[in-house]
């Protein structure tokens, strides 16, 4: 069974994304409410993918991603950035980080898992 780590400081986003991935796709979901906790969870839980918010206090998404990449235990885990920034300049900046994909808020809870699976090449 697939396991996804959601890192987002907003309770409602974490709750709806977890609901979506668990109920629609049947994946296992673990969550973290900040970058540092996300780094710990990623190393401990070894998820198959990480859904990572961009704008978070303390440690933002891009910094969290760089830290994930710097750790051999987590550097192989595909990361999908989640952002409410829709301007092209922001999209290009995020895409250039080396993440697997950039997904946008608000997402559709009924299709989020399909979108993720397509990007990740998960066909099962």
């Amino acid at each position: 069974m697939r396991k996804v780590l959601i890192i987002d400081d907003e309770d409602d986003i974490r709750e709806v994304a977890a609901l979506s991935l668990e109920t629609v796709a049947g994946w296992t979901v673990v969550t973290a409410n900040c970058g540092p906790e996300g780094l710990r969870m990623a190393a401990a839980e070894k998820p198959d993918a990480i859904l990572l918010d961009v704008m978070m206090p303390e440690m933002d998404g891009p910094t969290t991603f760089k830290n994930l990449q710097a750790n051999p235990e987590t550097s192989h885990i595909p990361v999908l950035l989640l952002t409410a920034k829709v301007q092209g300049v922001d999209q290009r900046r995020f895409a250039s980080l080396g993440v697997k994909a950039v997904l946008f808020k608000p997402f559709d809870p009924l299709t989020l898992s399909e979108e993720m699976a397509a990007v990740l090449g998960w066909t099962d």
Partner: protein
Amino acid sequence: MSITTPAAKTAQLLAVLWERNRPVVEERVAILESAIHTLGVTQTLAPETQVDAANVAHKLAGTLGMFGYPRGTELARMIEEVLEMTDPLTPTESKLLQEWVVELKTVLAK
């Protein structure tokens, strides 16, 4: 009646989550309303108030559509874009912000 499909179950749970998160959304709208009321009265906003209001609008833009309020996301996004401008807000922008916040409240009241 039991709910069998994942989509139906998700929709039902989403409604529960909306009710649970509604107070947070209302609090955020109230922050916007207060900032924009201040703007209407004084024709200016303290920089920190403007940044806080822009952040709140950003959060609303990212969540409302997820709960079935796509127009709410559009309005919050327009509010965020205006509040992120570094130039002083014009009377026209101030008026637009007031109109958008009123519409946002109306949309969420439905």
